[in-house]
């Protein structure tokens, strides 16, 4: 790229007094002074959350009220800050969801460790864990900041399901073609 020498014009006398520039500056700051303020006054006014926002990770249930997590522990393994702890558990055979493989006995996400990266959501094969729109997690103790299973479902609620994978599997098994 060619170097273009710019000719610097010497400042005029009026410019060297600073006065016109200061006047122009005062005009600019005055316009800012009377203009409506930019601040979003947080606790009263909340920001609009865009779609795809990565908020607090939560566990969700399917429309039949079944907990979708099968405690495969992929999220636990992928979690970069090691915020997730899962203790797998069995589903009793007499339960309406007895055909599902497993369910977590305990599921804890330590929100003091979580970095909201969303890898758990990415990796989950059951679409059971979602980073939803809640962004403000506070507490007075470290224990309060650890979300247990009950709290995670309370935060997550129910999300629509497109597949009903386990129900289809059950129907296929009942149809007797080897479960396919």
């Amino acid at each position, binding site marked *: 790229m060619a170097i273009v020498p710019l000719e610097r014009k010497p400042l005029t006398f009026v410019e060297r007094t600073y*006065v016109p520039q200061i006047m122009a*500056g*005062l005009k600019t*700051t*005055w316009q*800012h*002074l009377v203009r409506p*303020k930019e*601040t979003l*006054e947080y606790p009263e006014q909340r920001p609009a959350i865009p779609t795809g926002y990565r908020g607090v990770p939560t566990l969700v249930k399917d429309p039949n009220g079944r907990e979708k997590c099968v405690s495969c522990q992929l999220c636990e393994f992928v979690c970069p800050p090691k915020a997730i702890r899962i203790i797998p558990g069995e589903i009793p055979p007499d339960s309406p969801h007895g055909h599902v493989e497993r369910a977590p006995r305990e599921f804890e996400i330590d929100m003091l460790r979580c970095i909201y990266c969303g890898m758990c959501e990415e990796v989950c094969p059951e679409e059971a864990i979602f980073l939803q729109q809640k962004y403000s997690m506070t507490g007075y103790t470290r224990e309060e900041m650890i979300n247990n299973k009950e709290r995670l479902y309370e935060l997550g609620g129910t999300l629509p399901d497109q597949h009903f994978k386990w129900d289809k599997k059950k129907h296929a098994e009942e149809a007797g073609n080897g479960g396919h």
Partner: protein
Amino acid sequence: MVDFYSNLHPVVQGVLKGLAVIMVIFPIGGVCSLAERKVSAWIQGRPGPNRAIVPWAAWIPVLGPFLQRLGLFHVMADGGKMLFKEDALPGHVNKFYFVLAPIIAMMPALTTVTAVPFGAYIDAAGRVIPLALAHVDIGMLAVFAVSSLGVYSLILAGWASNSKYPFLGGVRASAQLISYELSMTLSVIPVFLWVNAPGREATLGLDRVVEFQSGMWQGFSAASWGGVWFVFLMPVSAFIFLTALFAETNRQPFDMPESEADLVGGFHTEYGAFKWGLFFVAEYAHMLIGSGVFTLLFLGGWNPLPWIPLAQVVEWLGATNPIVVGILSIAIFLGKVIAMIFFFMWVRWTVPRFRYDQVMEIGWKKLLPLSIGNLLLYAIAIAFIEG
């Protein structure tokens, strides 16, 4: 009430007047710190401090929330914080001078008030009598002499802190004061040349300057000059005085002693809690008095508009009670002073800080020759007009 007050012993009168003025200066100094925060917030597009409120104020329906939005209770919160936080005394400082510095900062700030007239009333004979704590004949000289002492507190603070940045701040403060005091003094001489005649008494009194600016419109003749404020008659003087005032009160763009970008906090780096607060009340008091002197010299003092003196307004209103007239004149004067203080804050968020060498260059190579030239020009002009 007037008679009761007039019959008091002069010393009691003096103490009462002094207390009244301090009771005004000190809270205004405190409110100025809030105003500074609010004005800076507004200029930056923020609402500024607007959360603190005391319960009894929250019960008032409309006024309470309004005052909360205005952030008025943050004055109390700030003051309370200053008073009750730990007053740390660093181990490496010279303790006596370290504690002395903020006290010395307050003294000239509150002493100069005595020489500044701040209002007027009209006596039975129709004469305008200025209100001031002390009618000193040397008026302007007293203000200059005492207010310049304020810099000693900065130097003392810088020196006693026994640390590099405060020391540099103190050195800068003294250099800056010397540089700008000269042009400031020279810039007001034309005003006093104009209002005075040889052989007159109290030639440096500030009352006399305001009296001169209290003229009425008398057609296109030399007599009408009396009504024009000096800011229009002597714009260059006013400009130099204002610039020097910014430098003397260590306000941006001339806040060399403080300049937090290169000197951390300058002279007050080692200070905290109430001692730090005292420096700031002193700075605001200096601003207040500087604005007051500027108003008296160039903005017509307690006269509401050019060619409309106080006496004229009182005549229109038909008010003769000296207390009413006094309060009216003080309100006009304080209004102008507060507008000036707003201007100080407005400039602070407009003009970036000058470099130290630029400050020296502006002071010595620009303002000083300009003020000498200005003085010569007006001296010759006045000699022609009056001679």
